[in-house]
């Protein structure tokens, strides 16, 4: 067993520590989506206003700005908690490898700076800066959203596919942080996959809110615009996610075969492996599922006769919890397929009939698309993070070697869960409040349709 910065510590509540990390992450990651996508969507709307002088776009951009600032504030604090937990929960991980991956977070910190500074300028600059200056002040928010997620994903890519160091007597030597983070081929698919997910989650949630309005009879030009813009973006991202997801799965197949075996519930190494839909993994194989012959080999290696490595190639204590990973993966793919279907219907109607869909069922589906996209997002992260288990740094450090020796994890976990529940209620309350602020009809001219 390799040595690390600190000797192994006893921790009776490793599972609770992992759950606390997962909770913090699940709360933060949907907010990241809004940080990635909402500034760009708002800037598009503001650009429409600058081009047309139509006050409707200005009103829309301003109202979405309020949502952005509320969600950014919550994202700031949930992100802070995540950075605290790097040391609170996994001190041996940070103490041993901070010199390798830390640079990514340091650069991310500067992206975060730029984001916070220009959100301050953009939000409070409405009506106080010239329209052009105001629009320009939004651009650094979009750019720093990209660089920030780039850095965080680079660290995650490194944890999944570590390189750029050697471990000698518990110390990292020959450390090349730049090569470790950015010379890593593994993270490009992760970055693109997450980036598209950000647009899907933001777009479907925003559009879903106006779909609720449509079902309740609020369907003026304002609501139609507010639905059409995010829905178009989400639909295009949902379609693009297909090839990117397939690429990600094939990269996993070659770099992390055991993760793939867990995703597919493949107990033993098989030539011409079957793909199973649904079902449950028991005793080394998937039961009650629908088997499609040779499809797994075909998808993973483009060859129906390819051999796919099974879970039996590693000892049981080096395997991730198969059903968690498998169910999460199937949930993500299932929801992604449904969202892709919604996207295709929307784009087909738009292209063929040059209008928004008419069917009430489309809008009913759209109401659920937003929350489902969040479920898919979290399922995707569960797939990659739980699928990496029991490793925190793949094939280098086990999660139980990284964990803190401090007591009281269940207490902090419970307290954090309560505080986050309160914050979630507060956010739901404030978003409802913001949505209920009446729109001044004078702000929706010209060519205002009945609303």
């Amino acid at each position, binding site marked *: 067993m390799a040595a690390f910065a600190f000797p192994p510590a006893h921790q009776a509540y490793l599972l609770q520590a992992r759950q606390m990390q997962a909770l913090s992450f699940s709360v933060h990651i949907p907010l990241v989506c809004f940080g990635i996508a909402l500034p760009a969507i708002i800037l598009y709307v503001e650009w429409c206003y600058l081009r047309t002088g139509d006050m409707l776009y200005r009103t829309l951009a301003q109202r979405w700005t309020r949502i952005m600032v509320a969600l950014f504030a919550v994202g700031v604090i949930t992100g802070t908690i995540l950075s605290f937990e790097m040391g609170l929960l996994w001190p041996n991980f940070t103490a041993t490898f901070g010199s390798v991956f830390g640079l990514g977070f*340091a650069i991310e910190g500067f992206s975060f700076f730029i984001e916070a*500074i220009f959100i301050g300028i953009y939000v409070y600059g409405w009506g106080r800066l010239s329209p052009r200056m105001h629009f320009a002040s939004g651009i650094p928010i979009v750019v720093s959203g990209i660089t920030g997620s780039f850095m965080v994903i680079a660290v995650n890519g490194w944890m999944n596919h570590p390189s750029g160091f050697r471990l000698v007597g518990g110390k990292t030597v020959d450390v090349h942080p730049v090569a470790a983070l950015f010379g890593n081929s593994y993270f490009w698919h992760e970055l693109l996959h997450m980036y598209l997910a950000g647009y899907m989650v933001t777009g479907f949630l925003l559009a879903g809110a106006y779909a609720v309005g449509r079902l309740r009879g609020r369907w003026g030009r304002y609501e139609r615009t507010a639905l059409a813009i995010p829905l178009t973006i989400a639909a295009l991202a949902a379609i693009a996610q297909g090839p990117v997801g397939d690429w990600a799965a094939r990269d996993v197949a070659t770099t992390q075969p055991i993760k793939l075996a867990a995703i597919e519930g493949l107990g033993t190494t098989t030539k011409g492996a079957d793909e199973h839909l649904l079902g449950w993994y028991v005793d080394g194989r998937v039961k009650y599922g629908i088997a499609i012959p040779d499809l797994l080999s075909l998808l993973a290696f483009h060859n129906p006769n390819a051999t796919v490595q099974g879970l039996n190639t590693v000892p049981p204590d080096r395997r991730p919890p198969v059903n968690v990973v498998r169910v999460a993966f199937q949930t993500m793919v299932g929801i992604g397929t449904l969202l892709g279907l919604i996207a295709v219907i929307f784009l087909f109607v738009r292209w063929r009939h040059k209008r928004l869909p008419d069917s009430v069922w489309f809008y009913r589906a759209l109401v659920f698309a937003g929350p489902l996209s969040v479920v898919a997002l979290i399922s995707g992260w569960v797939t990659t993070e739980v699928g990496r288990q029991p490793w925190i740094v793949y094939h280098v450090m086990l999660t139980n070697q990284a964990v803190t020796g401090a007591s009281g994890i269940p207490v902090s976990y419970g307290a954090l869960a309560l505080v986050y529940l309160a914050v979630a209620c507060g956010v739901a309350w404030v978003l409802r409040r913001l949505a209920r602020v009446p729109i001044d009809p004078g702000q929706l001219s010209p060519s205002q349709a009945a609303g």
Partner: protein
Amino acid sequence: MRLYDVPLVFALIGLGLYTVLAGADFGGGFWALTAGSGPAGERIRDYVHHSVAAVWEANHVWLIFVLTVVWTAYPVAFGSIASTLSVALIIAGFGIIVRGAAYALRSGTSSTAETRVVDTASGLSSVLAPFALGAAIGGIASRRVPVGNAAGNLVTSWLNPVGTLIGALAVATCAYLAAVYLAADAARREEHDLTRRFRARALGAGLAAGAIALGGVVVLHADAHPLYHGLVAGDGAPALILSVLAGICALGLVWAGRFEAAQYTAAVAVGAIIAGWALAQQPVFLPHLTIAQAAAPHDTLVAITVAVLAGAAIVFPSLALLFRLTLAGRLGHTDDAAATPAPVAAVLSASTPGLLVRVAAACLLISLAFLTAADARWAHVIGVSALLVFIVTGFLAATPAELAQTSASRENHAE
């Protein structure tokens, strides 16, 4: 100064900026908490909120900066500190959560009672967070954080005489800085009653902070003798003297109503005491761990130094812009003064939607071919590029803004 000291200097500068900037935001929360009821209290609370709302996020990021620099450049020290001081850090974290959430929630409040609830929660957390962070620093300064995974005592490492002292000093300093800034702000806006009230608060908090600091000398002598010695007789002595002089000077400037100068002098006092702590303690980082021993390998130190310098070159001008706009009142209380741009006919000329649709479809097919069928890296680059072109051309072709207008005629049908 050696290369292995450089990131620590960056982290200490970050800590100083966090104290004088974000600390003042915490202090504002303290004054909102103690503003009392009635219209006068409400005025103070609104004033505090408006002067802090645009800048608190940027100020808060200094904490993230300090954390990331320390865990990159001194990972073993960071792991030891974070695990032993976990209780103090969790308490600070909860304080930060509540206060940040309060900023988000305040925009939704519609009655004084609701605002009051939010401000009270924000105020309590604004006392809790600086106390816990100060106490954690007290734990490090009094050498109660040994190297190792939670190797120190989880409670007494920070809840001890020095930790309590620095925690209390942090709360008083935050309140003092906030009152000075708010008085300066109110004076600029010629809000004379608010200027008077913040001046009184600044004097009170400044005297309190001074008293705690004076009493602290006794506590340090008894509970953290190496630090006491380093500050009074060692390398930290000049910084301590500078801090005392600047502190007295700042109080005098507040008394004289020269708040702008007082702001900077008070910041010097805070910066000097942080520098004094560092000078008194070096070269020791943690017990039995010098800064040189704690430092990351050479390449990491170079990378983090370059990253921080490059980042600073971008961040400082941006911060200057933000503060210039807020201080000039352009992001504060002024009225809506936007010029309406000249209307342009349409968002996008609808000249080539057919072509765009075809380009988008072609790009999607190309990306499928190069991303799914091929495995080579160059093929993936083409596939990803085609996918991005698909999204952009698809969006341009779909012209959602115009779609919403053309769908107008169908709306009766839809209902």
